[in-house]
């Protein structure tokens, strides 16, 4: 399977040397996404409707990209899909815009496993607006302790903002439990899907959340674009965040009225070429046999975890089982700094990432000062896993 897939990625077409295992940071781009972006950029016009051929085509292609993303997410309508500059921008949009509707004393529930992009915007909102943050702790294996939802989600809770999958542990959150807890008190749910989307289409209707955020560059699309999905009725209630061209009704010297969603949240010229690239990426993803890919990714993950377990100096940061878990594996090596591990493996063309992974609260909770991470995508293969395990063995020798 992966051989045929690989040929569709310019990265693999051009340079086979690298064992790319930094997919949680960014995935490689799919040729269809790149071609769609290049096609748009090569003869382009701005969107927002002008009656000449190029502009009609750009407006149409941008709208089609929105429709593709809506299908990828099983959204109820295209109007629920807002293009942003990335997951971080999507999460900040909610923190600012939904945040404007919160009052001092209102509560937002987060988890200790959040990426800084779904943590710091809420810390800042706490300072601006006097809301209270309540933090779901993690279990020793890194999973979010959803048993604590019961006492942490109170009547004052307005939102649970939580990751769909951790970028450190690979643990997939029990979204049903989160949604049930939120619904019980009338709170909304924001899911940070940045890590999830790389591993297949998402069904927001089935998940039952109110907002879903992700980035294109982590699901085989271009950099520079991301998505905020929001339930139509939710988006309709929210004030704008960024303001400027394209999101207004009318503007006078005194006041402005705002367009309906999604336009209300897309101030200025959007990342047209990148959104069209993302549309092509998710379109391609929707053609894939995901059950088979999940089995394949799990098989690689199992071999990687088994290989790691052999090293006595290695401590896994995250669940050791395969249940509700994506192929993102972080670990510590006793006495050896993650950057040294990454460096030695980097010299052998194994691409890893080391450090706090923008999740300092999580590492602190798990008693770690930094971890090394290997993260797999559908184009990885056994040779990549072997290169990683052999490289790690080598690194331990070099560095001890």
């Amino acid at each position: 399977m992966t051989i045929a897939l690989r040929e569709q990625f310019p990265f693999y077409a051009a340079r086979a040397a690298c064992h790319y295992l930094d997919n949680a940071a960014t995935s490689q781009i799919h040729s269809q996404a790149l071609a769609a972006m290049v096609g748009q950029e090569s003869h382009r016009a701005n969107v927002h409707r002008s009656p000449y051929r190029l502009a009609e085509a750009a407006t149409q292609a941008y709208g089609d990209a929105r429709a593709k993303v809506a299908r990828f997410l099983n959204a109820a309508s295209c109007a629920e899909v807002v293009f942003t500059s990335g997951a971080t921008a999507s999460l900040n949009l909610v923190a600012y815009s939904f945040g404007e509707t919160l009052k001092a004393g209102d509560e937002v529930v987060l988890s200790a496993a959040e990426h800084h992009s779904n943590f710091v915007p809420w810390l800042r909102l706490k300072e601006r607006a006097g809301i209270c943050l309540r933090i779901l702790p993690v279990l020793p294996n890194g999973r979010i302790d959803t048993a604590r939802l019961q006492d942490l989600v109170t009547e004052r809770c307005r939102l649970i903002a939580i990751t769909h999958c951790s970028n450190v542990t690979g643990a997939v959150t029990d979204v049903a439990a989160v949604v049930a807890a939120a619904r019980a008190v009338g709170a909304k749910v924001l899911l940070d899907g940045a890590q999830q989307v790389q591993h297949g289409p998402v069904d927001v209707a089935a998940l039952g959340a109110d907002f879903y955020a992700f980035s294109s560059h982590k699901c085989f699309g271009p950099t520079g674009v991301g998505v905020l999905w929001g339930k139509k009725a939710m988006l309709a209630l929210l004030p704008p965040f960024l303001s400027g061209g394209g999101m207004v009704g009318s503007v006078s010297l005194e006041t402005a009225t705002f367009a309906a969603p999604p336009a209300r949240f897309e101030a200025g010229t959007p990342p047209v070429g990148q959104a069209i690239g993302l549309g092509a990426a998710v379109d391609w993803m929707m053609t894939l046999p995901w059950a088979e890919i999940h089995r394949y990714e799990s098989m690689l993950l199992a071999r990687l975890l088994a290989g790691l377990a052999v090293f006595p100096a290695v401590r896994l940061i995250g669940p050791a089982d395969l249940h509700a878990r994506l192929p993102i594996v972080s670990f510590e090596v006793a006495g050896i700094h993650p950057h040294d591990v990454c460096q030695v493996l980097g010299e052998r063309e194994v691409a890893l990432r080391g450090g706090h992974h923008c999740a300092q609260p999580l590492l602190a909770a798990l008693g770690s000062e930094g971890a090394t991470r290997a993260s797999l995508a559908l184009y990885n293969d056994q040779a990549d896993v072997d290169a990683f395990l052999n490289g790690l063995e080598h690194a331990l020798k070099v560095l001890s």
Partner: protein
Amino acid sequence: MSSTVYQQAIKELAEAAHGSGLLEHPDGASRLDNPLCGDRISLTVQLDGGVITAVRHETRACLLCRAAASLIGLTAPGKNRKEIAEETVALEALLASSHALPAAWKELEVFAPVSGYPSRHGCVLLPFKALNEALAQP
């Protein structure tokens, strides 16, 4: 004069401005803007037993929008709410795909060339939306 869209028929419709003005005691009224282009229509309607007896509108807009408003001024009287809703659907279908029109709505034919210009669809549809909105009032 060659233009795909601005055929004689559409220009005459716009120029004629059938139904321009506003009714003093309307049964329904609406005002719609197209923020993208600044088109604006105010529309009033009078009914008798669910059937339109008069439509008047003030339309400050492009030629296509004025032609559509004028067509409404000309042809809407005598129709009921359901027929107007059906006609609007037929117009949307015509614009979306340039498909053949149901015989009942042959009068919309004049807008067929606009189907190639999605950026203008809103101009043609605005008066129909305004009419539906005015008719939706009790």
